[in-house]
């Protein structure tokens, strides 16, 4: 039951083959059995989940609701959920229960989905391994010695292990795609502005984007139906009408022009990952696509540009965590400065403090032009690279990450090696285009994700391409042994 798709489960719920309460209990049981090994949840909202499941059953009984009604899912713990602890993986928000609901979780709730709980993540979404969580590292269900990727590592691990049908994630520099790749699930980072950021705790506002993480492209499409669309509460959300993400899943891929950027296949890429990606590309050729080599010449610059822009915005976004109105406040502050410095030093972990300092430095008088402005110029160049490439091809494909999931603790002492993990994902956020990670095979028994990048607001096209691939392969149907054990 836990391996089934949203469409199948929705049919079973409608046919009363199973109730939402039963389905929810099934997943809550799996969480209590398996999550102690994975640590993918920070909060399990079982009571609320069962309430929502009951309400869903009532709706289903009168034949109302949507395809998500009664489906148990999980939310990354940076979406504010009314009345439910929202920590952002940080001690700073260890005690924060929002009196409001994010637009994403609110829309999914309105579609009738059941929230099982809130998933673990790198603190304030800063990290590529989920080792930067105040609530401890998350384990990869395929191999408990490996990281699940980050920052949406909890969501990826939970979906891969069958602890939730699907989950939400957010992607600032690869935080949906890389963990999806490491855990062998399907994830979509939508076009910047496609999904509302209201109620999503900000890391880097100009890069952050929420999106679905699920077992298949079709399941992602179901979530996008609910999540996507303009929100007047987010000034950067797009008024471009949202598409029907389910309608064109079965369109044939004949004539599809795929570009393979040579920069994505150069030094640093694990040859086994490269082989897996090339086999997947061949599958597309079988489906009628043509492939050509392209160039995204400024790829290398995406790392320095990202690690200036994202920390700069973060240094300002995280100023509100000052111990004054909510969140952690140090004991017995002796004056205002003491309250600020100790509350923040105690509340934020090392990686968050590091990025706040980098960003503060980059924005400082005398350095702004050399760092922030220069990074913005590079960002424009990267965007132009994609615009040019996407005028020649329909989509761009390549690996999501240079390697498969690495060992826990293996890169924590080498931040540059950790940052290099994001080389294939960062530029997508800088350009603002949508991209997916789709299970494409295994290397050394660990999943490999194929990245599919598309033009602005081409989410429906990406989902169609991924779905056609999944209709002809079964990589997305593989389940880790751990999941089968429960």
């Amino acid at each position: 039951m836990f391996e089934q798709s949203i469409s199948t489960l929705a049919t079973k719920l409608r046919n009363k083959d199973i109730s939402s309460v039963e389905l929810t209990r099934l997943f809550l049981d799996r969480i209590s059995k398996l999550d102690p090994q994975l640590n993918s949840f920070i909060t399990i909202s079982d009571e609320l989940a069962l309430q929502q499941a009951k309400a869903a059953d009532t709706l289903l009984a009168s034949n109302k609701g949507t395809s998500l009604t009664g489906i148990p899912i999980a939310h990354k713990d940076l979406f504010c959920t009314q009345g439910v602890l929202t920590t952002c993986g940080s001690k700073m928000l260890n005690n924060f229960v929002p009196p409001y609901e994010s637009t994403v979780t609110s829309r999914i709730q309105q579609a009738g989905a059941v929230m099982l709980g809130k998933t673990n993540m790198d603190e304030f979404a800063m990290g590529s391994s989920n080792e930067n969580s105040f609530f401890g590292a998350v384990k990869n269900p395929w191999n408990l010695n490996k990281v699940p990727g980050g920052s949406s590592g909890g969501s990826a691990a939970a979906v891969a292990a069958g602890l939730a049908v699907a989950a939400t994630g957010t992607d600032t520099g690869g935080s949906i795609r890389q963990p999806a790749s490491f855990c062998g699930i399907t994830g979509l980072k939508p076009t910047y502005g496609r999904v509302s950021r209201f109620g999503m705790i900000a890391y880097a506002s100009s890069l952050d984007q929420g999106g679905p993480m699920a077992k298949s492209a079709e399941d992602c499409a179901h979530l996008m139906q609910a999540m996507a669309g303009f929100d007047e509460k987010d000034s950067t959300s797009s008024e471009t009408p949202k598409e029907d993400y389910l309608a064109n899943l079965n369109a044939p891929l004949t004539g599809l022009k795929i570009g393979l950027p040579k920069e994505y296949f150069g030094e640093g890429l694990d040859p086994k990952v490269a082989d897996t990606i090339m086999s997947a590309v061949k599958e597309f050729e079988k489906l009628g696509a043509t492939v050509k080599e392209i160039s995204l010449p400024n790829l290398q610059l995406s790392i320095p540009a990202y690690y200036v822009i994202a920390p700069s915005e973060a240094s300002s976004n995280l100023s509100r965590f000052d111990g004054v109105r909510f969140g952690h406040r140090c004991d017995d502050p002796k004056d205002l400065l003491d309250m600020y410095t100790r509350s923040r030093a105690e509340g934020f972990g090392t990686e968050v403090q590091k990025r706040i300092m980098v960003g503060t430095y980059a924005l400082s008088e005398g350095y702004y032009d050399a760092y922030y402005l220069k990074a913005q110029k590079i960002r424009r160049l990267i965007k132009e690279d994609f615009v040019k490439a996407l005028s020649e091809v329909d989509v761009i494909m390549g690996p999501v990450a240079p390697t498969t999931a690495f060992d826990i603790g293996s890169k924590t002492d080498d931040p540059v090696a950790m940052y290099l993990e994001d080389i294939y994902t960062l530029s997508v956020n800088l350009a603002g285009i949508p991209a997916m990670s789709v299970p494409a095979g295994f290397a050394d028994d660990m999943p490999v994700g194929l990245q599919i990048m598309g033009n602005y607001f081409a989410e429906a096209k990406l989902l169609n391409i991924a779905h056609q691939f999944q209709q002809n392969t079964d990589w997305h149907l593989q389940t880790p042994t751990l999941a089968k054990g429960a």
Partner: protein
Amino acid sequence: MDWEVVIGLEIHTQLSTKSKLFSGAAVGFGAEPNTQTTLVDLGMPGALPVFNKEALRMAVMFGHAINAEIGIHSVFARKNYFYPDLPKGYQTSQMDHPIVGKGHLDVLLDDGTTSRIGITRAHLEEDAGKSLHEDFQGMTGIDLNRASTPLLEIVSEPDIRSAKEAVAYVKMIHSIVTYLGICDGNMAEGSMRCDVNISLRPKGQKEFGTRTEIKNVNSFRFIEKAIYTEIERQADILEDGGKITQETRLYDAEKNETRSMRSKEDANDYRYFPCPDLLPIELTQEYVDDIKASLPELPSHKAKRFQSEYNLSEYDAHVLSSSREMADFFEAANSATKDPKLTANWVMGELSKLLNQAQLEINQSPVSASAFGKLLARIQDNTINGKTAKDVLQAMWNGEGSADAIIDAKGLKQVTDTGAIESMIQAILDANATQVEQYRAAEPDKQKKMIGFFVGQVMKASQGKANPGMVNPILAKLLKG
């Protein structure tokens, strides 16, 4: 040493929008703490700003009023610093691309000369909340009702050369923003606050001296006094061969002194950068032009029209047009009298005197413009004389009714019957035979002075009701004998 003072002003004007600059919370003064706030004003995690377009319209109106370049492309930037009443840890403001660019104002000074003051820019920004230090047993309370209230910060060039000029400039800005209806102009409640930058330099020197900034001065009188005080302080230091420290100072009105708040070394590095939560504002020329076409008549235009249309002096026209309410009152009253000089004298004279005594603004006058106009019409048609009119105005002020009702009730109508006046005068002359003898014996020069005695007696006998225009010729005739 002969010093020249150089002054530049930053005026924070609170825009009178219904809701805040980046949230739907109501804007208002005096509400219970933290009752006029939303998630956005409280800086809650994940809350996002949504720009209030009404504030934009108001800023563009102001830009037109000072003949400024309007920023077709303007950008919100974050000014980062920590303070307990700054909920997000940054103030959303504008830096490189303000909504209003270079403009200027022609300011009329007391000596009748006009001075052109350059305006560098005016930009939109949100206000901070308030820290409350009383009633919290040594702790600090935070009230965020004011957080995210829209401000237009108007920055002048260092073109101002005296305290009087500074005050005239601030008054002019005050008059423009209230004319435009974009600010209530209530300085006591902080709707207009002024930062004054002052430096001295030896007369003739081109380079500016080191400046100090006096923060948050909130009345015309305090601006003038603070400037005088600071000039004196700086001159004393310079005369003694000392140096001015670049710093922020506070004006203490009670002690009439400025004192240091923080020096340049303590100044924050605000780390301005474009706010990623707000898109740049892109205006169409049509939008900008439409606002220009719908601007109300501005004080300088109104003053010119009052001179040409009503034949008023430059001074009278300037005073009457200094506020929209005053100008409207004058024009409404004048529509009853059709005598601009008479109306102007009474608005600027008796009415202003009563308003000043009661510390009321003209829009709070208990006597309406039309009631006031009807009173003046009774002077024009000789029902009462000017002296009686002052008493009637006082009675109207006290709420005793209309001019006509008061004149009737108190029997104040002037005596205009020639026979009655003649017999009254004859009786007075008979009772003062000695004075009449002296008058008749005097030289014509002296007679002119002596006639006042008889006029006084007549007015006294008539209880002020004798029409002075009729008394004089009859008296002259009867005194001749």
